[in-house]
């Protein structure tokens, strides 16, 4: 752990010291030890503030967009960040050659709220391995199953390591295969139950647009959701359905399943469950095995002559 942190600081200092890089993006300790915050190091001397620990939950990819305005960027990159960067590169928003990707294998990030609920106080440290999470505060150590306190996106993670890397802090972990269990479960609910579920979720949306602003696939310079003629500001349930549909559809075939939208949502709306529905259907309908991994042409911008028409007759 500390080895990685030391190596990270060295690399960041080296990049910034070399003069070619304007910013290094990583994490630094926050006011709350369980919530490190994204950090933008501007010179080699600042690299000592960088931390890596299992509380580093925020996605970093989206931050490169603005940071690149100052010059090339070095960035600490986990699997999810890496996919986000791939998305931004595929969308022509970020030039690969202006990035130095410091890859790290990730075993999952702790959800600070869940960890605190388990421990009854703010954890100071955590250790995550393939089996369990150990939460530490003062003298107290508690080991709990991973699924009780990791961020939900980490539980579904199949890309612990980035596919793009310029330097590695450790050995990459193997990629897995997405199982879409939660989507399948939802699909099996009766339609009325699904509707009731989503209505309940969408009703509490406050339209803060954190989901959009944090999303590496939502990097449009100008978002149609901000155009009142395309998306009214009203928050009737119909508007909420319209907004949620539009947001999810606009990332259909482009979502990298990093789960940042859901993590960022202050109202805990399970947005990944929407995004993953599209991903699952893209996999099942168009034979794209790993639709969350960006490809040269996104699935909705291409076709095959023999694409299924299974929607025909669905109704009857």
């Amino acid at each position, binding site marked *: 752990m500390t080895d990685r942190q030391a190596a990270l600081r060295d690399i960041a200092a080296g990049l910034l010291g070399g003069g070619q890089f304007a910013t290094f993006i990583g994490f630094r300790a926050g006011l709350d030890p369980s919530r490190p915050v994204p950090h933008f190091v501007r010179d080699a001397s600042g690299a000592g503030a960088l931390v890596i620990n299992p509380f580093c939950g925020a996605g970093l990819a989206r931050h490169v967009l603005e940071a690149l305005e100052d010059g090339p960027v070095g960035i600490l990159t986990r699997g999810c960040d890496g996919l986000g960067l791939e998305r931004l590169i595929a969308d022509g928003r970020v030039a690969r050659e202006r990035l130095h990707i410091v890859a790290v294998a990730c075993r999952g990030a702790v959800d600070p709220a869940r960890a605190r609920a388990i421990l009854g106080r703010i954890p100071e440290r955590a250790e995550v391995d393939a089996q369990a999470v150990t939460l530490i505060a003062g003298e107290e150590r508690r080991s709990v199953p991973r699924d009780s306190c990791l961020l939900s996106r980490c539980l579904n993670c199949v890309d612990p390591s980035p596919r793009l890397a310029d330097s590695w802090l450790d050995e990459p972990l193997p990629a897995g295969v997405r199982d879409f269990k939660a989507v399948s479960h939802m699909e099996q609910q009766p339609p009325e139950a699904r509707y009731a579920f989503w209505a309940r979720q969408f009703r509490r949306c406050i339209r803060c647009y954190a989901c959009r602003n944090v999303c590496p696939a939502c990097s449009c310079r100008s978002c149609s959701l901000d155009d009142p003629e395309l998306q009214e500001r009203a928050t009737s349930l119909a508007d909420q359905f319209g907004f949620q549909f539009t947001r999810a559809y606009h990332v259909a075939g482009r979502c990298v399943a990093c789960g940042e939208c859901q993590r960022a949502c202050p*109202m805990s709306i399970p947005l990944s469950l929407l995004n993953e529905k599209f991903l699952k259907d893209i996999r099942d309908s168009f034979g794209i095995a790993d639709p969350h991994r960006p490809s040269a042409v996104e699935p909705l911008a291409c076709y095959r002559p023999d694409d299924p028409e299974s929607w025909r007759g669905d109704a009857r």
Partner: protein
Amino acid sequence: MTMNLLPSERLAEFRECLAAGARLYGPVEVDGIVLFEELGGRPPAIRPGNPANSLKSFLCPQTEAVFDFEGGYTDVALRVPAAPTAQAIFGVRPCDAVALERVSRVLLAEPFADESYRQRREMTTILTMACREAGPHCFCRSVGVSPADGRGSDVVLYPADGHYLLEAVTARGLSVLQSAGAFLDPARDEAARATCQSTPVPLIGAVEREDLAARLEAVALHPHWDELARRCLGCGACTFLCPTCYCFALFDTVRGARGRRSRGWDSCQFKDYSLMAGGHDPLPTKASRIRRRFLHKLSRFPAVQGEYACVGCGRCGGTCPVGLHLAGVLSELEEVLR
């Protein structure tokens, strides 16, 4: 002030009594998060700290009609919505109630009192649950709010072992206690209140300083705001959840010959917030908008109202996707100043 004791086991009956004449809202746990919602008979989820949403949802709804209109270009008829009905909100934390008092200073300021807010405020009974334990992000004491603060409340409930001490703060609160007299014991328990008054809440030095406003104005042009802007995503979560943020926008929607002018929450963190038609924008950068938010809360609102536009509820810190906690930011600025 009138005080009564309510045995813990009669709390549900007390709530039913409240619900008799009004829609009753309170914190409930839904899909893993605690929210203020209509209770509808559910027991409230009283947890340390605050629900995700604030009372704003019930007093300045996310969107509401200002008026409806109908007609063509040469004839228009306006119709204003019906007056709101009575509502009671149970399980409010003192900080949220104080926030209402702060917001009211602006929205009820004459000569242009915000009529829909005023009507709702008048129809709303706030039943506050004083805190015996701080939430994870609470810092009320640092901004001059106490865990037993009664400002903005109609009734404050101080939890004690086996009972609650109920204190009517307003005339409306008094009538609540009178109507619920059957459950109440006209005894007093000063200890209950004292316990809450001494509930430990983390103190955050950077916020507590008496010269906070002056120090902030002094760093108003510091480049650290640009660093904060790098981190900030420009979403409106902090402002939409903040109980003291009251900015709103007006917008029209049209359905054929009918339409509606509505108001809805707006956020100074949005990039088109202050953008003028001609392209001029006094807040052109994310950094300028973040600075606006902090200075408004901690310097400019206090300059006029004498109190912070922050009650230390901790929502911004708890929900900001990138951890831009108000207190954390101030600590950073302090660090920068040194």
